[in-house]
């Protein structure tokens, strides 16, 4: 289970609204390499992990991703909350506004709604952990693109840089977990098809 901590993992105080940036950043909320996909991916994959390390790391990183989901939602909310209709239309958010107003809805930057097809649970710990490593790199790359796009707004840049750094740390930890799973599988002629049962 989870309990809520009434604080953000990292402070966000955006003084100047800018719905143009929100249109890009929302991809890390509900896009293909976003935080919702990350948290669901890890928290779902943890059930099939074969050793102590990989169960713990998927559980704990999945949990941190929920805190990042909140951070990204907070950025989007603060960038859009006082925007006028004219500003919303001007930056191309008219379509979004039609269905969602200025609520925070999980879509990609291109407007595609979130789908579980963004994540995989293959019933195979090696395949899953490899997917997780790739997911962290893709999220890092996305944050770097967002950092380029948000270069003029320090209040947005600062939390984006924090989030990017976390992807790097998660990649490192997943790599260590993968190594341990591979060692375990190699140890005793462990057939991957049996992973879920042991």
């Amino acid at each position, binding site marked *: 289970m989870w309990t809520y901590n009434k604080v953000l993992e990292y402070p*966000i105080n955006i003084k100047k609204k800018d719905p143009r940036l929100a249109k890009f950043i929302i991809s890390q909320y509900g896009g293909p390499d976003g935080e919702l996909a990350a948290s669901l991916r890890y928290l779902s994959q943890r059930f099939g992990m074969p050793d102590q390390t990989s169960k713990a790391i998927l559980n*704990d990183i999945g949990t941190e991703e929920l805190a990042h989901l909140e951070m990204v939602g907070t950025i989007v909310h603060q960038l859009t909350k006082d925007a006028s209709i004219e500003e919303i239309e001007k930056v191309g958010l008219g379509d979004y506004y039609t269905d969602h107003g200025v609520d925070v809805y999980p879509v990609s930057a291109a407007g595609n709604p979130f789908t579980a097809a963004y994540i995989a649970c293959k019933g195979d710990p090696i395949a899953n952990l490899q997917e997780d490593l790739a997911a962290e790199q893709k999220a890092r790359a996305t944050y770097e693109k967002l950092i380029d796009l948000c270069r003029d707004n320090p209040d947005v840049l600062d939390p984006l840089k924090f989030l990017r750094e976390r992807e790097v740390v998660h990649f490192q930890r997943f790599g260590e977990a993968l190594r341990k799973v591979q060692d375990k599988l190699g140890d005793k002629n462990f057939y991957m098809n049996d992973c879920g049962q042991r």
Partner: protein
Amino acid sequence: MSENENKNCSCEKKATNNMESENTNIGALNNMWVKDDDACLCNCKDNATQEEMIHQIKCLFFGIQELTLYLDTHPNDEKALCLHNKYCKEYRELTDKYQKIYGPLTMTYPCNKWRWIEEPWPWEGGMN
């Protein structure tokens, strides 16, 4: 964690200085707290403002978060374990002190008046 496990940890002797574990970024983490911001070092002074306290709470929580992930893959790193214990203790003390004055940060903190609903919520751009 049970009390016994706590007692077995030789934190007092080893935790505070020279946190350079091999092949880790724990040393960097420790340096970050020590060098960049004295306010982060815990034991908030008695006259700390709400903003200073919440900043320090976030710092400590981040340290705990980072050490937790690290310990998941390096469970035998005693230095990291000690630092984790140290931050957890400081976090507990400071959040107790904060919540007494400014209201609950989690639903597990009891209060006589229902302050949980007080705004701002974290996403509303207050100091939380």
